[in-house]
């Protein structure tokens, strides 16, 4: 039995971010499926793992965590010596770490809200037989375009968002980008040269491929 357990659903971007982190670190884990369509995440025993009723929850030995960001950060720190380094190259450098933290906040507050709404409108709604609201798509694409303009400028200076190496900041973007690449919104990424290169880099990583299986 792996000492690491993830309680989540393999199709959700939040669970995927955790799985990606584990794959990058070559860590064994058990994925315990939480059946979202049955509302399993809003009942016991899941609520004892996350009282806010959201996937994923996490266990490593007797440590229990919830919240996607705390989990990926824990894995990156606890298993720092193993697999891909997901922290800045000089991980003890507080200024570099702060730069990575800014990137994770930006992903959570600026990028993800627009990107997730677009994934919902253009992808998940089809799965549930609902109709895409094109007005919402236009509005959210406009917001996402502004964020990607900032990313384009940033990536002209640095290879990755937090600096010269791949970090949690880049990783957190991958699952929702993978969904958007299958929608018309893909153009927002392909029409920005550095963003396009960055997307190609991060999605071709072996770990990124593994979570799609």
């Amino acid at each position, binding site marked *: 039995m792996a000492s690491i357990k993830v309680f989540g659903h393999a199709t959700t971007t939040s669970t995927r971010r955790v799985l990606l982190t584990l794959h990058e670190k070559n860590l064994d884990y058990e994925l315990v499926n939480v059946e979202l369509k049955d509302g399993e995440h809003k009942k016991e025993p899941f609520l004892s793992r996350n009282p*806010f009723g959201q996937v994923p929850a996490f266990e490593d030995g007797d440590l229990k965590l919830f*919240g996607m*960001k*705390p989990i990926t950060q824990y894995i990156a720190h606890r298993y720092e010596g193993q697999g891909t380094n997901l922290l800045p190259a000089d991980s003890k450098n*507080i200024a570099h770490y702060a730069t990575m*933290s800014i990137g994770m906040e930006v992903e959570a507050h600026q990028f993800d809200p627009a990107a997730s709404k677009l994934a919902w409108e253009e992808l998940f709604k089809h799965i549930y037989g609902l109709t895409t609201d094109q007005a919402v798509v236009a509005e959210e694409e406009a917001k996402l375009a502004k964020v990607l303009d900032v990313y384009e400028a940033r990536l002209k200076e640095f290879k990755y968002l937090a600096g010269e190496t791949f970090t949690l900041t880049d990783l957190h973007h991958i699952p929702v980008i993978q969904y958007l690449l299958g929608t018309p919104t893909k153009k927002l990424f392909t029409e920005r040269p550095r963003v396009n290169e960055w997307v190609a880099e991060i999605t071709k990583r072996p770990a990124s491929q593994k979570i799609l299986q």
Partner: protein
Amino acid sequence: MMGTILQSRLLPIKLSHSSLLFSPSQHSRSNLKFTSKSSPSTITMASIKVHGVPMSTATMRVLAALYEKELEFELIPVDMRAGAHKQEPFLSLNPFGQIPALQDGDLTLFESRAITEYIADEYSEKGEKLMCPGCNKVKALTKVWLNVEGQQFDPIASKIAFERVFKGMFGMTTDPAAVQDLEGKLVRVLDIYEARLSKSEFLACDCFTLADLHHLPVIHYLMGTDSKALFESRPKVCEWVKKITARPAWAKVVDLQKQ
């Protein structure tokens, strides 16, 4: 989203264009502080500069951390009404055009929660601890509750503050249906806090950390409205709110709003 609405409509603070130097032990009304080491004709500039306004919840979060750490800093007002935050030179500090931004020597940071974490790490030996020292396990639990504030509490609570407090300031009308809906969501979060605070003196552990501090600005606004009942009706939450809002460092942040 919410932050952008708030920040683009803030009234200008009636300050001169010179920056305000604040030392932790004094908050008098003079604009510039001279330290005892400088000659009368020179001004000692703090290496930490905060670009923001005292009314902004995100700026207050950063100021609270600086006061808790007893750090010297300079507060440089940003003329929100003129849209200064959406133009250069501010955009060079934060390309997303939101306050606050912080400069420490030649390091520039934005996103209030990344800034406070930097302050807690870089100045870990000064003032209040703000993060539970310890192994990965302890730090991870602190981050769980930091994340809860940012992802579960703030999105709801700051919208209530917008409805009940900021809309009034800008001549807009509170939407009671929206408030009711939001309060319905907030009580579910506060019930979880009540359970948590029955097991732990503060949110992350038994000491005051950033996980508690980050709540202060929005709670401060809500406690001046009818929404305070949601906090006061839950004994552990009520006690926690009293404790964290009574902290001297927080009183200094609130004082800045009166200047």
